[in-house]
């Protein structure tokens, strides 16, 4: 597990009360029941991943936490506040931000407009200069149409724009999907830096090795439930089991 050492993670800033506590979360897409009681929690400053096969309900879990699923029930506590009845815009205002799988870069907006679109919800977000430092490519393309960027640049823009807002909890849905190895590394370094800066991150990831480098803990999702929890230290010992879960 040399990769884990490479990341040089500081010990998780564990606090007693989890920042995000999800219990018995159920979720539906129109008539189909996708989530059947997802439970997990994330302490402040942690990076956790949701691992699982396609269709297990990982993306749906992130959407349900964000509040953009049409129908959901159960409990999602953020900083001790129940958010299950709040609309997405109110949840965003509490300090949760989503970087969706499809990136959702707006084609009718320039790169700069995309970057500046999410309003600041809390103090303490990154400045635009700090974001340019993380993603220098974006700075050079500010006046381009958002969707004219390469896939990797769009991903950076999608992450960059939610760092400005002051959100404490970032939900990143497959940020490395379909990207070149060098870009995957850059995004890995970014996540490590964000963790150092105190961001709390829930990561949905298919790239198991990527997840192993950046995360503190892994939740295995299957058929709309969390069926196992694996601390990153125990990952090596559980490789066999995990491969069985993921069907690789």
């Amino acid at each position: 597990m040399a990769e884990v050492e490479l990341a040089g993670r500081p010990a998780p800033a564990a606090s007693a009360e989890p920042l995000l506590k999800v219990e018995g979360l159920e979720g539906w897409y129109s008539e189909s029941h996708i989530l059947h009681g997802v439970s997990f929690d994330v302490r402040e400053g942690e990076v956790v991943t949701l691992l699982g096969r396609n269709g297990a309900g990982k993306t749906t879990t992130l959407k349900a936490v964000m509040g953009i699923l049409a129908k959901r029930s159960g409990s999602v506590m953020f900083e001790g506040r129940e958010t299950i009845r709040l609309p997405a815009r109110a949840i965003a205002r509490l300090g949760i931000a989503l970087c969706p799988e499809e990136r959702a870069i707006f084609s009718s907006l320039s790169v700069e407009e995309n970057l500046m679109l999410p309003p600041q919800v809390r103090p303490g977000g990154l400045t635009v200069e700090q974001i340019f430092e993380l993603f220098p490519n974006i700075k050079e393309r500010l006046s381009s149409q958002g969707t004219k960027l390469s896939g990797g640049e769009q991903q950076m823009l999608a992450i960059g724009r939610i760092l400005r807002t002051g959100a404490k909890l970032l939900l990143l849905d497959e940020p490395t999907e379909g990207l070149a190895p060098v870009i995957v590394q850059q995004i890995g370094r970014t996540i490590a830096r964000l963790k150092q800066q105190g961001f709390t991150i829930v990561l949905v990831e298919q790239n198991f090795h990527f997840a192993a480098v950046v995360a503190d803990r892994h939740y295995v999702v299957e058929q709309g439930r969390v069926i196992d929890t694996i601390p990153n230290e125990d990952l090596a010992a559980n490789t066999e089991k995990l491969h069985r879960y993921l069907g690789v």
Partner: protein
Amino acid sequence: MFELLGIPPQALFGQLLLGLINGSFYALLSLGLAIIFGLLNIINFTHGAQYMMGAFVAWMLLNYAGVPYWGALFLVPVIVGATGVVLERVFISRLYHLDHLYGLLLTFGLALIITGIFRNQYGISGLPYAMPKQLTGGQNLGFMFLPNYRGWVVVVSVVVCLATWFVIEKTRLGAYLRAATENPTMVGAFGINVPRLITLTYGFGVGLAAFAGVLAAPIYSVNPNMGADVIIVVFAVVVIGGMGSILGSILTGFGLGLVEGLTRVFYPEGSAVVIFVIMAIVLLVKPAGLFGREV
């Protein structure tokens, strides 16, 4: 004096001016329709009735409350826009998850009801609305006579259209609007109140129609049918320009007004149908409209 293809210049420029005036109304109305369609996905058939309401509310303010034209120019869009906000909250907002057709039926029905109420109350002969005296008279430009009020209508329409375009394309508020047009869910997930944005956008689009109504009041008589007459042409303009395209609807509005004017000079019989002929050709060649994005 010179003549062009046997047409005296007075007649040519007179018709071009008339075309430009009509184009001003097409542009203002189709701009509002395009904004509303872009964000709400509703084809607002009430638009013509709301334009007519603009003219009537201006007339009422003058005759019942003594508010002159200049006051009406600001007050009427606010008043009629507010009725639009109520309509959106009470009726239209319930249809967003349904097919386009329901929005069309609802707004068409509302248009019939509103027009019916005004027809019942004020008859169909039309009410006169005096031109503001600052804008009476005209300028002799040598090749033609330009009535001041008509010049004013063209200038103020261009200014309002460009200002609207600027707000939508160049400001933060406009970026919210464009983003919400593309992906309202994601914009909501950033903490922006999309339902309120939608309500205010509808109110603004309706306000634009009412503004056009005030501008029209001194030119055309204030008549319950004035909206129904113009709205069909405006829908053709929106289709030609491309549904939801802001700049497209402005340029197409003015352009088609001019084309209509020219047709009236060279082939008067064709002037009533020329826009629909162009619409048919555009739909055949470029189904998304001249400025629309292909989907």
